[in-house]
């Protein structure tokens, strides 16, 4: 009897311990977010830390043993469609989004589900360009998600219950949606809006973490009288109202400068600049924003008056390095337009830039970094094509190698047809159309956004690569070529291993110093998210998503 009671007590203790483990350890303070890199067992923000290196100090998996990686567990989603989410991991619990706007809490050791929260997205929502969601932010014991119907929702990380749910902007017939992971800074959660192909006027918002009350809004297109509005020069003075400049990818943050950095999307209509003459600020730009006030401190525009759909929807990578003999806070940016830029992130000053893929729309950059545009005649090939030299897929920076690793599309071009288009609320507002340049006129060419299991496109229409770029020179130190293009992000680690995927559905580990293939696993479907790594109970894991399967690997035991 005594023994039975003791066992019962132990079982109860175990249960209590288990509950305590969940309840007591999910306390992600702002200080933890600031120092995310110092707790590499976790993955606390979309890009792994405010500086957005997608680099982990974990080194249990290294170049010498990565070949022994084996499958540990998988989790399968039930909604078909590209799964672009980057999970968060907090003390053994993985939080991720899945289509449409679900949040799932998993055991990061087994993949078993603690809870699922499902936000019902109205059937008449308008996800501009895919019903995507790329992830969450976390603070305290609350996770934050933006939704396709342009809401921001705070969810209890333990129970999965809603704490607050606010409308960011009315979604109906407006074109607005939210697809990126929010960014928590101090006592606010920052989120922008997508809809650049639907004639929105973009903005960035900040909300109170506790109440969901909006604290400020910064429009990415200035209104009449505001600085930058003079770059919208259409005689009617109307183009700015539907000029796009969405924000659909998570920003970065420099606590020392107290600046957040956000890339903005294309001006609208995408392909007909005749309807929106001028540089169209602040489209295709990086904007530096004070998180306390929403004040823009500086901007840098990559593609003024963009006629190619070259969104600057890339992750701002913040690096401290010597520049011309002085310690300098720089920002590395491999842009969709095909140029690799280095900027001073205190001032926005251009430091250097050079192409990393074939370019014919510009002959170079002037001393201030402005592109010297040489537009190809309408209907002829534009390099890089509409999908860009790179796009939203996360790059990675390894402080161990000093290299920026970029997922690139090479040998890829588009033709663009421009036409006048009247704005109609809630309708696509692109001002034309585009095609992939194929080597055979009139031949079927799969669109850039996907294809079936057979690579009918082949290397003749575009190929993928991981490029290791040296920020000091722009030189490509090494190049890992893939037969098919890639929409996968990149992860690097202190084990000098680089992980990435691609449309071929192959998850690969490369030597970050040389680009040599060390290991690969065929996962059977496109990898369109950014891999992460974390540690539970002393074991390092690496997670990626292929098709509907989230797959986690660890070393063979």
């Amino acid at each position: 009897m005594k023994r039975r009671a003791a066992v019962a007590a132990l079982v109860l203790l175990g249960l209590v311990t288990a509950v305590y483990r969940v309840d007591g350890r999910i306390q992600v303070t702002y200080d933890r977010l600031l120092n995310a890199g110092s707790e590499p067992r976790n993955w606390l923000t979309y890009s792994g830390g405010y500086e957005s290196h997608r680099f982990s100090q974990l080194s249990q998996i290294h170049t010498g043993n990565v070949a022994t990686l084996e499958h540990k567990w998988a989790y399968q989603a039930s909604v078909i469609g590209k799964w672009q989410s980057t999970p968060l991991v907090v003390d053994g619990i993985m939080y991720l989004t899945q289509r449409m706007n679900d949040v799932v809490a998993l055991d990061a050791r087994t993949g078993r589900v603690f809870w699922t929260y499902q936000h019902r997205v109205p059937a008449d929502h308008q996800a501009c360009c895919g019903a995507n969601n790329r992830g969450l932010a976390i603070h305290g014991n609350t996770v934050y998600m933006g939704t396709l119907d342009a809401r921001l929702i705070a969810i209890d990380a333990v129970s999965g219950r809603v704490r607050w749910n606010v409308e960011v902007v009315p979604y109906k017939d407006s074109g607005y949606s939210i697809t990126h992971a929010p960014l928590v800074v101090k006592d606010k959660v920052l989120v922008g809006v997508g809809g650049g192909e639907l004639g929105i006027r973009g903005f960035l918002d900040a909300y109170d973490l506790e109440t969901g009350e909006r604290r400020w809004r910064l429009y990415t297109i200035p209104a009449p009288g505001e600085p930058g509005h003079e770059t919208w020069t259409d005689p009617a003075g109307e183009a700015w109202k539907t000029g796009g400049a969405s924000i659909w990818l998570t920003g970065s943050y420099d606590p020392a400068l107290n600046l957040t950095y956000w890339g903005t999307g294309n001006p609208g209509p995408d392909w007909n600049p005749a309807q929106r003459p001028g540089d169209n600020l602040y489209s295709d730009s990086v904007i530096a924003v004070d998180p306390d006030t929403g004040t823009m401190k500086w901007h840098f525009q990559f593609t003024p008056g963009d006629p190619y759909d070259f969104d600057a929807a890339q992750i701002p990578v913040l690096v401290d390095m010597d520049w011309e003999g002085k310690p300098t806070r720089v920002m590395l940016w491999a842009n969709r337009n095909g140029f690799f830029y280095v900027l001073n992130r205190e001032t926005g000053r251009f430091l250097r830039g050079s192409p990393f893929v074939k370019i014919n729309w510009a002959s170079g950059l002037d001393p201030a970094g402005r592109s010297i545009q040489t537009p190809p005649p309408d209907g002829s090939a534009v390099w890089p094509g509409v999908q860009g030299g790179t796009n939203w897929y996360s790059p990675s920076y390894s402080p161990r190698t000093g290299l920026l690793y970029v997922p690139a599309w090479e040998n890829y071009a588009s033709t663009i047809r421009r036409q006048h288009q009247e704005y109609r609320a809630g309708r696509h507002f692109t001002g034309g159309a585009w095609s992939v340049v194929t080597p055979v006129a009139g031949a079927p060419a799969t669109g850039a956004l996907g294809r079936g299991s057979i690579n009918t496109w082949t290397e003749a229409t575009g190929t993928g690569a991981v490029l290791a770029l040296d920020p000091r020179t722009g030189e490509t130190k090494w190049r890992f070529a893939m037969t098919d293009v890639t929409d996968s992000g990149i992860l690097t680690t202190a084990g000098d291993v680089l992980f990435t995927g691609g449309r071929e559905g192959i998850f690969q580990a490369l030597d970050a110093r040389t680009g040599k293939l060390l290991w690969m696993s065929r996962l059977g479907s496109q990898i369109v998210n950014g891999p992460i790594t974390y540690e539970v109970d002393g074991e390092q894991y690496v997670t990626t998503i292929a098709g509907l399967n989230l797959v986690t690997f660890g070393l063979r035991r």
Partner: protein
Amino acid sequence: MGSTRTPAALYLSLVDPSSAMLPINRPIRLVTAEGEIIRGRRLNEDTYAVLLIDDRERLLSFDKPRLREYEVLTTSTMPAYAGRLTAEELSDLLGYLLSLKEPIQGRAGGTEQ
């Protein structure tokens, strides 16, 4: 076929197949590590593997890094029908090929956001 190709492209395929050949259909020639020469038509390819049907109608798969030689050719194995068919016969054939239509998947209106 008729859904995804223009009449002009189909006509070109008949009269000058090499210039109209889709890259996926280009003939390949490879030499295995053992020295065997394989000729066939590419069915699928990724960074590490190539799948093909060879001239003996075998479905084959090869690891690309293990191949001694791998070559994608640009000359079609299909003969050109210019001069072999009359203009009327070509027109009839073109009409038949254009009638082979299946629903095709539409292209998205924009890029990602």
